[in-house]
């Protein structure tokens, strides 16, 4: 190279660079593989244990004192109802907050303080949100141990994650597009509605899917705000008692006897299937939006 390196030296360095290049490829591949191995192990265990108890009766059945008769129907419907509360509440509040912070709030010390605290909230243990829900929704608002109290508590839990994801998505909308809109005399709200949101919806949904997946698997806060461990009917109103799939699974796992963990495994399979279905719907919606723009 231009006389600074001898040919042999250059060749040696080239081989070294190629070697390091290869090492990093192997490292990243290994990292991915480790995750996949554990996922495969988990799925294998759950499937082999639970498949025996998985039947139409299990899906359609209510809790029972005997493993052969136990079913997850109440939990499944309870979880779907919970998501039906959590998704609209947390999306509307979360996206609105993100829009305010990104587009309206002046960039000063106060908004940076709020920003930092939202990120901290995303890391607060879910049981703490459960305690908040117990105090505020169950007692102060007097919703009792109801579906509504559970849904709202869960909404608070996922809210910070949705805010942060939506902020990222909104921030990634190119400034040139906003300038184009303002340059034609559009107001801020028109620009947000017609340019910023359409361009950021795929990103917002991706983050929200992850957040809602977390909500559907959460157990701790629901235990605190009073989801029932065994219930023999579906919730008939927002203020009715309810249960959710992770609660059922948790209660089965903690029962004595060799067969209950197998029932729990069957419950986990149903939980995973419902989760996959929900994600599929969300991905479908996202792709529809991506096509439009």
């Amino acid at each position, binding site marked *: 190279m231009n006389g600074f390196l001898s040919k042999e030296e250059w060749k040696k360095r080239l081989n070294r660079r190629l070697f390091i290049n290869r090492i990093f490829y192997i490292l990243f591949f290994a990292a991915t593989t480790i995750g996949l191995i554990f996922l495969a192990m988990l799925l294998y265990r759950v499937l082999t244990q639970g498949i025996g108890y998985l039947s139409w009766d299990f899906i359609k059945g209510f809790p029972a004192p005997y493993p052969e008769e136990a079913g997850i129907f109440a939990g499944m419907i309870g979880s779907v109802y919970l998501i039906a509360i959590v998704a609209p509440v947390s999306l509307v509040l979360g996206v609105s907050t993100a829009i305010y912070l990104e587009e309206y709030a*002046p*960039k000063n010390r106060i908004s940076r303080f709020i920003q930092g605290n939202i990120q901290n909230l995303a890391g607060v243990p879910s049981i703490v949100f459960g305690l908040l829900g117990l105090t505020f929704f169950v007692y102060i608002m007097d919703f009792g141990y109801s579906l509504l109290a559970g849904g709202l508590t869960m909404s608070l839990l996922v809210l910070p994650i949705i805010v942060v994801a939506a902020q990222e998505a909104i921030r990634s909308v*190119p400034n*040139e*597009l906003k*300038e*184009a*809109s*303002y*340059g*034609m*005399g*559009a*107001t801020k709200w*028109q620009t947000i509605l*017609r*340019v910023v949101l*359409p*361009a950021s919806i795929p990103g917002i949904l991706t983050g929200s899917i992850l957040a809602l997946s977390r909500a559907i698997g959460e157990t701790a806060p629901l235990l605190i705000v009073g989801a029932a461990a065994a219930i023999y009917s579906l919730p008939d109103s927002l203020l009715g008692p309810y249960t959710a799939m992770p609660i059922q699974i948790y209660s089965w796992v903690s029962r004595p006897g060799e067969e209950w963990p197998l029932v729990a495994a069957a419950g986990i399979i149903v939980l995973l299937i419902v989760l996959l279905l929900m994600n599929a719907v969300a991905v479908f919606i996202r792709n529809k939006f991506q096509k439009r*723009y």
Partner: protein
Amino acid sequence: MDLSQVIHHENKNKPKEEKHVFEVSNLNLWYGDDQALYDINMNIPENQVTAIIGPSGCGKSTFLKTLNRMVEMVPSVKTSGNIKYKGTNIFDPKLSVEDLRTHVGMVFQKPNPFPKSIYDNIAYGPRIHGIKKKRDLDEIVEKSLRGAAIWDEVKDRLDENAYGLSGGQQQRLCIARCLAIEPDVILMDEPTSALDPISTLKVEELVQELKENYSIIIVTHNMQQAARVSDKTAFFLNGELVEFSDTNVLFSNPEDQRTEDYITGRFG
């Protein structure tokens, strides 16, 4: 206050003398503590092409963006002095920036179509101003695309995404999009700096056609371009307006030594 009434009034009272679309007096502008424009005084003529030239960082883009107050997208901007658009102070708190920007349209350095169909790009402006009827929108879209000399290239694919167009076509689409709000003035911020020579030529030809109906102010890095397309040229240096005169005068017989140094390529 809204600008449509003001314009009507102006046209009735001063029909003959050389009309100015912008009258800038004692304009200073700061980004935070850094002053970017120093005491600019400049009358920009109506229905002509005014070019603004100068080296990078001389404040020419800042000045252009002050004319439709887009410069205020940067929160720390402060201004002093006065800019009158057809007699109305553009900094008047009673005048909305939305109103101003509807009369003073803008084309940006990098083509910035929306990730929408060609049709929806053009219809964006009319729609935000409240035009909803499909027939009206169709008419505006065709008129604007014809006005920007791109109709024949896109008329068969109005429903396709604008990102499928070439860079030059995208920029003419952006000009068409600007025409669709029916502005009086078009500000162009180095509109050809991201384009190849043939696309540049097309945009320059377009500028010549548009000056029949619009007042055009074009910032350019390219002195040949200023000489080719403009009637008047302003030379900015370090935030000051050094010289402003007819383009042929400025390029053949500049008054200021600094202008001469710049146009003869001694710096910049």
